[in-house]
Structures are given as C-alpha cells and as structure tokens.
C-alpha cells in the first residue's frame, strides 16, 4: 500500500482527562482514506473517551498532543463543525429525543452539512427517496421516520438508526463506538452490511469494539489494542483473532 501524503486522521501523542483522571495517555494513530481500523480493548481502556474526544464532546480536557482531520486541527473545531467537515460518531448509547422526529433530524443534519459546503438545501422528495432506500438496507420500517429520535427504540433499533444516519450523512470518517454491543447476530449482520456499503477509497472507518465478532463481518485493515489509554499493539485482522483466543490479559502481559 502506498503511503498517502494526507491521512484522513492523524492523532499524535494525544492525552486527555475526564473528571480529573488521565484516560487517554499518549495515543498515536494514523488512518488513511480507504482504511478501516479497529480499536479493541478491555473495559475502561479509554475507547469511548477517544471516540468522544474525536467528536468534540464537552467535559474532556485535552492535556497534550494533537489531532488532524483532513489536514485541519480537529481539536480547535466545535462538535458541529467537525460533523459538517465529514466526521460522524455512532454512539454507544444513542440518546432519546422525544418531540424531534427522525426524518426532521436527518434532514436538518444533511442541510447543515450542505450549507457549510455552499450547497442549496436538499430537495424534499429526492431526500425522502434516498432515506427510504437506506432504511430498506437497514431493514427499518418507514414508520421510524415519524417517530421521535430513538424514542422507545430497542437497543438494536437505536444502533440501526445510528448506521442509518451515517449512511444518509455519508461521512468521510465514521467513528463507531461499540456499535455491535447489545446486537443479536442478525442485527449485527444488518449493521455490518450498512457499514460495508459505505466503505470506499475516499472514506475511513474507526471501529471501536470490545469483541472480535463484529470484525468477522467488517474486516479491518488494521487492528489496534488499547489499554490504559494508549495503543500497546497493532497488527492486521489476525491480531483480533488472536485476542479472541487468548484474551486481553495476553496483551497486557506482552505490554
């Protein structure tokens, strides 16, 4: 693989605190266009913190290092600008927002992105057609569109809805935080199909997961093991399989 001069995401020696605790400690990672990276690690290793720091959630103090997204200083951008620039966070626990319906959120999000790119608002009819197509792929009933965002959705429905939003927004970089947790095998396949449909030479995906089973369906180019806030080991997809066999203790020992 030839080295691209401009990676999508370049994290250098990143450290972050939350609630006074150092959770990310000197993490470095480079993700190029077209690549899927998986970050695996035990509970409390800093996986979700990394996802939130990348998406710009308040409450996280950056104590060192830098993050470049498409050559720009990501950490200097507010959350909404990061999204408009092509970053997407699939939440581990998507929040319910009764009173704001799904189709409204999708449209507002798409239009916010288009506006930032100097494009006119999306045509209502074409938009609905597009969303319907993506919903079919995600095996979601159309009635979800008129319901409140994630309102009364099961755990699996919430995760599908995250992927649906991702497919409609077509991000340059998707950060998916434990999108597989709480999914049965059928739902896992649907979610994987959604993610795979987005893979292309221009996009990148950062999959954060605790278990290897998601990686049977979304095959990563690189696998990193995160413990105590830093990457202790990187490899290809076989690393995930080895982890599955030998457990995280093995990596901790080696580290």
């Amino acid at each position, binding site marked *: 693989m030839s080295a691209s001069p401009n990676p999508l995401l370049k994290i250098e020696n990143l450290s972050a605190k939350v609630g006074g605790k150092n959770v990310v400690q000197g993490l470095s990672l480079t993700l190029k266009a077209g690549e899927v990276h998986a970050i695996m690690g035990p509970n409390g290793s800093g996986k979700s913190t990394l996802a939130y720091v990348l998406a710009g959630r308040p409450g996280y103090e950056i104590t060192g290092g830098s993050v470049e997204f498409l050559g720009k200083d990501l950490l200097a951008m507010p959350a909404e600008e990061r999204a408009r620039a092509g970053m997407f966070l699939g939440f581990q626990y998507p929040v319910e927002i009764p009173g704001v319906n799904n189709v409204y959120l999708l449209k507002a*999000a798409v239009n916010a992105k288009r506006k930032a790119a100097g494009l006119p608002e999306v045509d209502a009819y074409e938009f609905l057609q597009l969303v319907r197509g993506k919903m079919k792929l995600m095996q979601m009933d159309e009635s979800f569109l008129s319901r409140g965002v994630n309102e009364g959705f099961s755990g699996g429905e919430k995760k599908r809805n995250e992927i649906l939003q991702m497919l409609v927004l077509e991000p340059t970089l998707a950060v998916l935080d434990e999108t597989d947790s709480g999914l049965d095998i059928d739902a896992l396949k649907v979610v994987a199909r959604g993610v795979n449909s987005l893979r292309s030479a221009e996009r990148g995906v950062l999959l954060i997961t605790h278990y290897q089973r998601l990686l049977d369906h979304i095959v990563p180019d690189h696998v990193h093991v995160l413990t105590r806030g830093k990457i202790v080991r990187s490899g290809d997809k076989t690393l995930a399989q080895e982890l599955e066999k030998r457990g995280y203790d093995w990596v901790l020992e080696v580290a």
Partner: protein
Amino acid sequence: MVTLPTNRDENWRYANLRPLAKARIDAVAANTSSNPAIALPAPLPKYEQWVFVDGRFAANLSHPAPNSYASLLNARDAGEEFAAMLDAAIATEGPDFALARVNGARGDAVLHIAPPDGAEALIEVTFVASAEASAGTSYPRVQVHAGRGSHVRVVERHISTGGADSMVNAAFDLALRADATLDHCRLQNAGDRASSFDTLTAHVGERASYRLRTVTLGGLSSRSTILVKLAGRAARCEFHAASIANGTQTHDMFAEITHAAPDTVTRELYRGIATDRGKLGFNGKMVVRESAPGADSEQSLKTLLTGAGAEASVRPQLEIYTDRVRAQHGATTGKLDDQMLFYLLSRGIDRRQAQTLLQWAFIEDAISRVDCAELRVEIEQLVAAQLNEVSALEGLLGP
C-alpha cells in the same frame, strides 16, 4: 369592597400583581366605534365565532350559528342559571375568588353556552383587549352548562391590540352534567405589555369529562386560577398546560383539582419554559376527599430554564383523605439536557437550532393533545415564534 389578592396570600406568591394594583378597576367604557383594525385570527372551520372587545360583545365581528346554544345573558340571570345547575355549590370565598367577584360585580353580559342533553356545539370565543389599563379593565365572563351526554368544544383566545398595557379579568364557570364532554382549549396570546387574569371553576358530573388545554404565551403578567371539582362518580379531568415566558414575562398558574366522588380521574401535565428573565409559577394542588375512594391522579410538572435570569417555581401539593387512591406525582426544574444537545451538535446542527429543537421537544408534550388540527397548527406556529425560531423548526410544524 373586595380585597384583592396579594403576594402574601398562599396561592399567589409568584404572580406578578403590580399591574393589578395600578389598573383602573372600572369596566372599560363601551366601545361605540365599529371596532376597525382588529386583526382576528383565522376562524376555525365549523366553529361559530363570538368576539368580545374589552369585555363587550362585538356583534359586527361575530358569527353565531343560527339556533346557537350560546347566548348573551345579564350577570344576574346568568348567576341564577348557574346556581340551578349545580348539585353542590362551589365555595366562592377567599382571595382565590376575589377577582371573579369583581368580575361579577363590574362585568357586562355573560356568554352563556348551554347545549341540551346529547347536543354538540363548536364555539370559538375571542377576547380582544384594546384599551389601556388606565381606561379601565375588561371583564369577560363565560358560562358553560353542558347537558347530559353533550359534547362541547370551546376554543378561547385572548389577544390584545396596538401594544396596549391592557388589563383583563376573566371569569369562567363550567358545569358538566352526567356523561358530558367539554373540550376546552385556551390560547393566551396577548401583547408584551398586557396583563391577563382569570378565574375558572368547573363542576364535573358523573362520568363527565373535562379536557382543558392551555397555552400561555403572551402578557407581561398572566395569572390563571383553575378550580375543578370532580363531583360525580368517575368524573374525569385532563389538564395540559404549556407556557413560555420570555423577556420579563411572568406566567403563574394555580390549579386545584378536587376528587370528591369515587373513581374520579385526573391527568395533569404542565410544561413551562422560561428564557431571559422570564418567571414561571405552577402550583398544582390535588385534593382527594374521603368521599373519593378509587381516585386516580397523575401529575407531571416540568419546567425548563434557558435564561441566566430565568426563574421557576413548581409546586405539587397532595392532600389525600382516603386510603384507596392511586397518585403519581412528579415535578422537575432543569436546564437543557447536555447529552441531547451534544447528540444534535454531533450531527452538524448548529447550537442555536439545536437548543431551539430541544425546547420544542420539551414543550411539545403539552401541546400535542390539542385535537383541532387547524388550531394545533396555529399554536405550533405561535410557540415557534415565541421561541424566536420559526425557521429552525420548519419541517417540524404543520399537520
């Protein structure tokens, strides 16, 4: 001479009573002009329209139905009718009734709505305040006597013209006979300087259902006193109230619902948003008498503060004198949910729009039960305007 309530009175602590002290207590003189230049809201289809300007009937702006169940009565006749209607008199002593008594003494004609047994009526009543408070007070008065099994829908609006610092003191007396249903929707959308006071009593008979939806948006000072008595077995009251106080507005409400008969049901929901230096008060009192075993009462009161100087006082009160009762009560005052906000921001939606959306989502609970589609759309538009973000909510509004 009636003693007006003050902030020292138990149920009046959060009301802004300053305009009341300054206003002239006499009724505004009859407007002899033809009431030009009053912009009325679009009439609701199928509803008959009754319009009052400064508390007086405006025939030229009204469109009563032929053979209407509504009519104008003088105050004395209306009082007799009402007393004859009730199985038990509603107490009318104390500061909570002081304004209603002033209304009774100073007011002009009473709009009397009395559908007979089994009848249906759709009535839209609009009260326009046009005079300054220094010229006097408006005294609208409405009585509804719903016959057995009748179904009445009353849409009540309050508006003001020309930025007047008008003073309105309205009184409503409602009585529902057995199996009657009254859908009552009140929209208070007076101007920024207006003051709006009202007293409402409702007497709900056996298996009758009183559904009150109120939306309070306007006025410098707005105060509603709502006293509902569930007098007959299995009588029911649903009360959904929405309020948005901006700038230096004060919206205060006192609602006392008394379960006086077995198996009576209350569903009360209040959602209030205070922005800037707005103030909200909601005092929701539920009384379950010894005579009301099997009573079922739910109350959900929530306020959202989005301004640095905004204040809210939400006060649930429960008085229960029987063991056999089901009561669920909750009250919260909070700020916008950070997790919801971040979720919207993470989708690229700008901060201001995201905040407006969340306010909308919060208040929507209280207005979603308005079942007249035309009115619902109008209310949603007005709520969006009150949140100063019509454009942000485009696509959420409408049927």
